């Protein structure tokens, strides 16, 4: 394990509940500064719930979540983002009553060195062209870019990204891959939820595999080829 000071996110013995249903059963994970780590698993394995629990968006939680050095279990949901974390939800969460630019400007800056609007529009020229359109009028790919761009502007240096490639055309998936590489170069810390490891394999440093609300396997980048078969079995590919 790397030094504590390098750690941007640590989750220990995290349990989470929706009403009476016990969804997460003691998650332990950590992400170091500048790392891109994936959270893999089949549908329903609890990956989205893990991200939402980190953001304090689920019902009841227990355990410990440390973000940028601060224990957050006791913090109200609106305090979490200000620790420098940005969340891109699976359903993308584009607001239909806001236009593209309003969506982009909605989340308040949480750190001072976020991307400017110009830089965002340079990275995603489509968003500039459609900046006055209603947010949900965009194509799925454009909505995904908007959801991502929105948190890049805030200056968050830890990103939680939930299935950002789901259901998108290959050309857009490729574009998103390039964006992730740029973000990595900027030394951002990324926890990426994916169904399988193919999208992130070339850029990820580590992979966690979830099943039934538990982490059942941790795979280093270097072990990937050796463990491909095991992963395929776990992920049901």
């Amino acid at each position: 394990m790397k030094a504590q000071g390098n750690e941007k996110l640590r989750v220990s013995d995290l349990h989470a509940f929706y009403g009476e249903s016990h969804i997460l059963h003691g998650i332990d994970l950590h992400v170091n500064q500048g790392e891109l780590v994936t959270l893999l698993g089949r549908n329903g394995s609890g990956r989205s719930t893990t991200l939402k629990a980190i953001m304090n968006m689920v019902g009841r939680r227990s355990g410990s979540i440390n973000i940028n050095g601060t224990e957050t279990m006791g913090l109200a949901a609106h305090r979490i983002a200000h620790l420098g974390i940005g969340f891109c939800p699976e359903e993308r969460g584009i607001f239909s009553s806001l236009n593209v630019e309003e969506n982009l400007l909605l989340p308040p800056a949480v750190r001072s060195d976020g991307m400017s609007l110009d830089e965002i529009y340079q990275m995603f020229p489509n968003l500039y062209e459609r900046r006055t359109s209603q947010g949900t009028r965009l194509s799925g790919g454009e909505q995904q870019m908007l959801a991502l761009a929105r948190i890049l502007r805030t200056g968050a240096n830890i990103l939680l990204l939930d299935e950002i490639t789901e259901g998108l055309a290959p050309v857009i998936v490729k574009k998103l891959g390039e964006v992730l590489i740029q973000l990595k170069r900027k030394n951002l810390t990324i926890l990426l939820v994916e169904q399988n490891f193919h999208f992130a394999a070339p850029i990820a440093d580590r992979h966690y595999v979830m099943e039934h609300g538990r982490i059942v396997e941790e795979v280093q980048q270097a072990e990937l080829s050796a463990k491909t078969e095991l992963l395929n079995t776990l992920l049901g590919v």
Partner: protein
Amino acid sequence: MDTILGINPVALFGQLLVGLINGSFYALLSLGLAIIFGLLRIINFAQGALYMIGAFLAWLGLEYWGLSYGWALLIVPLVVGLFGILIERFLIRPIAHEDHLYSLLLTFGVALVLQGVFSHVFGSSGKPYSIPEFLQGVANLGFMYLPIYRGWIIVVSLLVCFGTWWAIEKTKLGAYLRAGTENARLLQAFGINVPLMVTLTFGFGVALAGLAGVLAAPIYSVSPDMGANLLIVVFAIVVIGGMGSIGGAIITGISMGVIEGLTKYFYPEASNTIIFMVMVVVLLIKPAGLFGKEV
């Protein structure tokens, strides 16, 4: 006065004016309800009682504390809004995680308690409140005589309604409100203090009722049941307009007032029920309301 094609223009304009004035109150009250509903997902049954309190505070202010109408117009909505904030913070929020039905029943209870207390303390007879001097008199519009105060009500409510609409549709704060109405949880995950926003929104929605109460004091008699009577109609209007849009609440409020006025002229027997008839028709054709989003 002459009639044209069997229509007496003076009487018609008179009823139209009454309709516009009633519509102004409908718009202010249903606007407040729509804003509150957007974030809290409850229909605030106390809105009528808070309108009544607004009128009473104006009357009390003038009777006992020498608070002029102009000041009442500024201060009373603030006081009523503050009162609303206390209601949200200490009564609604503690049960907000339960089914919304409980909060709705709670606001209904609050309305009954407030109305009961005011009846007990002030009796049920109407209190007179005279039109402030600077708004007395009548303007000759050529085709009709317009009592200045009535024109004032229409102008003030239109300005407040339009200003509110503008603030919600065109400003950053409004963007937060719209986003919170769609997905409060995600907005909060972005770092916005949504619980505080809910409290302030409730206060603002309720302050609109307080303002309507002050505007109403000089033309309707100030009495404990003035809000309850109005609120029944406003609910019908909310059903007609649907809870979907701020602009929809305003437009429906004013147009229902006008339709009511026109009915008073053309078929007075139906004037008390026309809005409810419209409600039934709308419910049959478009259950989510004219401006509501189908779910």
